């Protein structure tokens, strides 16, 4: 296992702030959960508690950005994207504000908080928003690299950060390349495209498929807005069959993005694995992954069951 992405968030942004006086942290009363508290200890004068008032927090960040500061946001996806959506759209995206929407508790791993906190349509929402870069790192190593990239980029960036420890995918030499699909496993029978913390589980699924004689080519797509069209097309051409796998709704998310891309550029037989237009429930992480068919075993079973001739 890797370290929890949220701890990396607190530490990496603290280190970035050591050398970058523009960085401030705005917290929506969740610093002890998002691990922005690590930043507060390192830079108490640059940690601003905004209270349980997220619409205001987003607007404050946009105003600060006009004064040359680079605010990072500490809250959950539910309160960084969904609740203040109009503020994100009007005040951050439309103004091109140099605000980093670093949102914790992405996906299903929310400490058993259930459907109110399981925001599994944020990729669909954010990638439809002009000017909103959307990145979903796979593990702790990539989270660090993505945060460093975001701090070097002038403009809004949305980063999905997972609460609990996730599987380690990349080694310490990994270099994040913006808007580049990453081949993480070579194969020839079927292409699996995945994003976020689902990617390591999808690699495990490929291992299980190999045991059954199916060679899966696995591609990780951390940048969901914009899209690496050529990377997606190349991945499809590799096997001529594509399955998208995500801890997110299949409507408009990774699956939607890949379907749109291939439909226009390289029509390819495609299946989407993920959450299927449902509200989720509270349960331990591994139970949820099994329940919704996105554990390694669940993905392997579903890929094996696909009838490509239909």
């Amino acid at each position, binding site marked *: 296992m890797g370290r929890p992405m949220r701890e990396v968030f607190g530490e990496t942004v603290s280190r970035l702030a050591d050398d970058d006086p523009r960085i401030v942290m705005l917290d929506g009363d969740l610093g002890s959960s998002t691990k922005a508290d690590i930043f507060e200890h390192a830079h108490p004068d640059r940690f601003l508690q905004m209270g349980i*008032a997220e619409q205001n927090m987003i607007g404050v960040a946009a105003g*600060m950005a*006009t*004064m040359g*500061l680079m605010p990072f946001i500490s809250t959950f996806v539910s309160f960084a994207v969904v609740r203040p959506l*109009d*503020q994100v759209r*009007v005040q951050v995206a*439309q103004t091109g504000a140099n605000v980093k929407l670093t949102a914790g508790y992405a996906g299903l791993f929310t400490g058993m908080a259930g459907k109110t906190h399981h925001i599994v349509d944020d990729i669909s929402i954010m990638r439809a928003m002009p000017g909103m870069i959307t990145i979903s790192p796979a593990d702790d190593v990539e989270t660090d690299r993505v945060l460093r990239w975001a701090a070097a980029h002038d403009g809004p960036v949305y980063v999905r950060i997972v609460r609990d420890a996730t599987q380690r995918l990349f080694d310490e030499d990994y270099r994040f390349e913006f808007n580049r699909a990453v081949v993480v496993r070579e194969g020839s029978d079927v292409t699996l495209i995945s994003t976020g913390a689902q990617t390591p589980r999808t690699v495990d699924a490929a291992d299980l498929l190999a045991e059954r004689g199916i060679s899966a080519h696995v591609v990780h797509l951390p940048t969901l807005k914009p899209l690496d069209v050529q990377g997606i097309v190349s991945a499809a051409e590799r096997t001529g069959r594509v399955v998208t796998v995500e801890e997110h709704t299949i409507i408009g998310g990774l699956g939607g993005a890949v379907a749109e891309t291939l439909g226009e550029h390289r029509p390819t037989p495609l299946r989407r694995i993920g959450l299927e237009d449902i509200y989720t429930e509270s349960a331990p992480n591994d139970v949820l992954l099994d329940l919704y068919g996105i554990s390694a075993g669940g993905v392997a079973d579903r890929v094996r069951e696909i009838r490509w001739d239909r």
Partner: protein
Amino acid sequence: MTAGAGTVNRAEVERLEEMARRIRVEIIRTVNHAQVGHVGGPLSAADILAALYFRVLRIRPDEPAWPDRDRFILSKGHSSLVQYSAMALRGYFGVDELRTFDSQGSRLQGHPDMKLLPGIDMSTGSLGMGLSAGLGMALGARFAGRDVRTFVLLGDGECQEGQVWEAAMVAARYRVDRLVAIVDHNKLQQYGWPGETADVRLPPEEPGELLAKWGAFGWRVIEADGHDMARVVAALEEASVPEGRPSVVIAHTVKGHGVSFMEGDYRWHSKPIKPEEFAAAMRELGEVEE
């Protein structure tokens, strides 16, 4: 920096009143030209904008991005014409450009757009958002150690938005004292709460409600007649003096002020002007149109 009511001499008041009159003339001309746009809200705020752009704000129209300028946010962004008119008259751009308002390719969008028009400090249009951005600017100025003041104009109807009170709460919490909110309290909103008959629309708030609310949120509250230029200037300058907490000026105004048949009629929130109405409005504003 400090200036009480007594320090504004008569000539200065008359100069600012003339600018307010000219702002109103440009609002009416532009709406007449475009045959679209909000009318009542821009007219009610014209005196406030004249006081800000021609006296209170420390700005450089020829250097709109001057880092030490005072910031101004029109949170009631649908009243963009009052800001555009004030900016044009102040020299940010030519008055002729006002006639491009709302047309394709114009820098003068229906709501102010900071990406298009230099001098707009924050894009607005979705109500309730401006004060948060202003708070961010005030906090940013504090971080940078800049002597910058931030002014945010809100509508009284806009004060129904929850985000306004989120911002009010946090601003008081941080004792931000270079942040001035101004409420254009014209007692009408677009459609309004139904009164005893359909034609009677009740005001956005009860009498005294805004004063009590802002006070309860920890703000210094200053009340003024928003059409009495000496009082407007005195209130804004009093509010600009740092006192360890944010300040709000509740400016009592009349929607549509300056054109008798538009005053106090919610239907003039936004509607095209007929030729005879335009001529009558110009006459009332002391302009003779060719």
